[in-house]
């Protein structure tokens, strides 16, 4: 079943066209990877899906669960099951991570007509996930992302994802800046979410993450367009040969 379909998406930022006609179809339960050199539009795609201001869609559509995603507000998209693990998560002093997470979970539950979760039950739920991601309880008492290292921020994003249980998760360069051990921890957090009801879009520069989270489909994004799509072998090919022939093809 098609979960999300992007058709001929053109996006400009500050008057400059970054995405030049993206076509992408993701079914439920699938893991897709988008790879490409820096500055090529990878983050633009995740920001447009998130609904961030400053990204102008000049053409094309995004259909999510049959609905027009672009006409939905950011918070609505999240409650409908979309989650973005940002590349540079913002620090919010004064807002404890656990308080924020519980509020977000309850917002989703309210939307789904489910009962609100109380503090005690929430802590029980979160403990399991904390163990897998090697995050201490002390850390989530701290204000959101404040003083977290790059790696800790990435793990915190994955923790949020595992608590909110989205149907479609976009992970924007979640692997960048992580050493091999941290990478494995994050990967097991993500794999723990993997299932028939969840789809993933991994946006990454390096092939490394895909050793641990094996994708169903790989797409190469260069110059704002998807130049080639393939299976997991495509990632290995890129690892060996680099992006140069794609960059040349895009420039031509």
């Amino acid at each position: 079943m098609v979960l999300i379909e992007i058709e001929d998406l053109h996006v400009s930022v500050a008057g400059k066209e970054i995405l030049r006609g993206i076509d992408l179809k993701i079914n439920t339960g699938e893991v897709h990877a988008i790879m490409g050199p820096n500055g090529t539009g990878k983050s633009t795609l995740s920001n447009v899906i998130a609904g961030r201001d400053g990204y102008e869609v000049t053409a094309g559509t995004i259909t999510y669960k049959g609905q027009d995603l672009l006409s939905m507000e950011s918070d609505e998209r999240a409650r409908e099951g979309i989650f973005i693990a940002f590349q540079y998560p913002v620090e919010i002093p004064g807002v404890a991570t656990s308080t924020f997470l519980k509020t977000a979970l309850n917002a989703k539950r309210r939307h789904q007509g489910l009962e609100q979760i109380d503090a005690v039950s929430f802590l029980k739920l979160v403990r399991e996930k904390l163990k897998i991601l090697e995050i201490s309880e002390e850390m989530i008492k701290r204000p959101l992302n404040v003083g977290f290292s790059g790696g800790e921020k990435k793990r915190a994003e994955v923790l949020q994802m595992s608590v909110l249980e989205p149907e479609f998760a976009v992970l924007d360069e979640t692997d960048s800046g992580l050493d091999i051990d941290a990478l494995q921890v994050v990967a097991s957090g993500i794999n723990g979410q993997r299932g028939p009801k969840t789809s993933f879009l991994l946006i990454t520069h390096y092939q490394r993450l895909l050793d641990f989270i094996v994708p169903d489909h790989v797409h190469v994004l260069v110059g704002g367009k998807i130049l080639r799509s393939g299976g997991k072998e495509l990632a290995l090919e890129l690892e060996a040969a680099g992006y140069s022939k794609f960059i040349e093809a895009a420039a031509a």
Partner: protein
Amino acid sequence: MNDHGFSPTYAHALGALPGTGHEWMDSLRQSGRALFGAAGLPTRSMESWRYTPLSDLARISFSPASMGDVSDVVSVPMEVPAFSGEVLLVFVNGEFNSNMSTVFEDPDLDFEFQPFNAASETNISWVRSRLGGLATPSDNSIVALNSAYMAGGAVLRIGKGKHVDKVIHIVNIGHAGAEPIAWHPRFLFVLDGYSKVTVIESHVGLPGQTYFSNQVVEIYLGPKAQMKRYIDVQEDLEAFHLATSAIELKSDSSYEEFSLIANGRKVRRETKLNLAGERASSVLNGAYALEGERHCDITTFVNHSAVHTKSSQVIKGVLAGKSRGVFQGHIKVNPDAQKVDGNQLHKAILLNRGPEVDCKPELEIYADDVKCSHGATTGELDPEHLFYLMSRGLDPSSACNLLTKGFLLDVVKKISESEVQHAYQDIISRWLGSRLEGEDKAAQL
């Protein structure tokens, strides 16, 4: 100049004022009357009152509180936080209310206490020698007004070396029945050397007519004395709350204060603090949350007049509707006050277009080996923060509330007594909650 509505009904009450006939009380009152009579209520043309005009107050004809009927005030309102093991001192319209207070029920009371009216009739030397010593009628006409008509309030003394382990909770309930009333309570705290006490002052109003509470508090901290003072202001919507605190710190003494202002039509809390002894230190923190047309003014003057003294101040405000916040913070370091560390920070968040914040920091430094800093920012909630919270499913109002709460909690967390921290967090949550409800109602219309 006229007394702006105070003389007609007040003049005839003169004979009934506490302490009349005692020279030390009479001269203070006379001086107050003369100076207030000459100056009247402060106007915009006075530098310190530029941002807090009292023309609306001046238009109201207030009667003395003693003429009001408070027989229906029998219990402490729910909004007033409760603290474990607290000693309650309840004042209704400024006057001590023994029924609701618990202070006389405690056999182990380790401090001296007398309602102000009783104290002014006896001639206790420590009261006589100190009343009017730190806050004098010549300071400004508001203190003069209080000095002229002072009634109600209390005097408290903590003896040398005494550590009062129970929290002293002063609850001030305001209630105007049929007509606007005013009261001018006077508080005097004397902490002898090495003593220690925590005092909480709650100000709450019951709905009714408008009222004007004009309080003066004088605090003397002896060497090595420690005082923690927490103030929460939840006056009635239509109430005027003026409070003047004058504090003197002797060597090695410390004073920690936090004031939370969450309601009241017009609130001005003015503090004059003198770090008079070596190594004395003070913390003057606070938070205010305003909506509608509320007005809150925090004006402080911290005077470093001894070496190695420290002062610190962090005030945070959240404003909605068309409210008005004012912060005037003056730090003075005298020529001989070397090795001083003084800092001040005021941060305000405007939740919509409409509110206004006036901020006037002043550093007056005459010594050359000091560290002084100040900061003032006024802005809106960070759109990046709002977006992030919304990207996790929080609707705009909830996101705004969570960020606002976090912003204020940041300074509330500095309160060193955790029970007070939690109580003040609750007051803030309630304020935010009622805003959300108000927005929901408005959206449904």
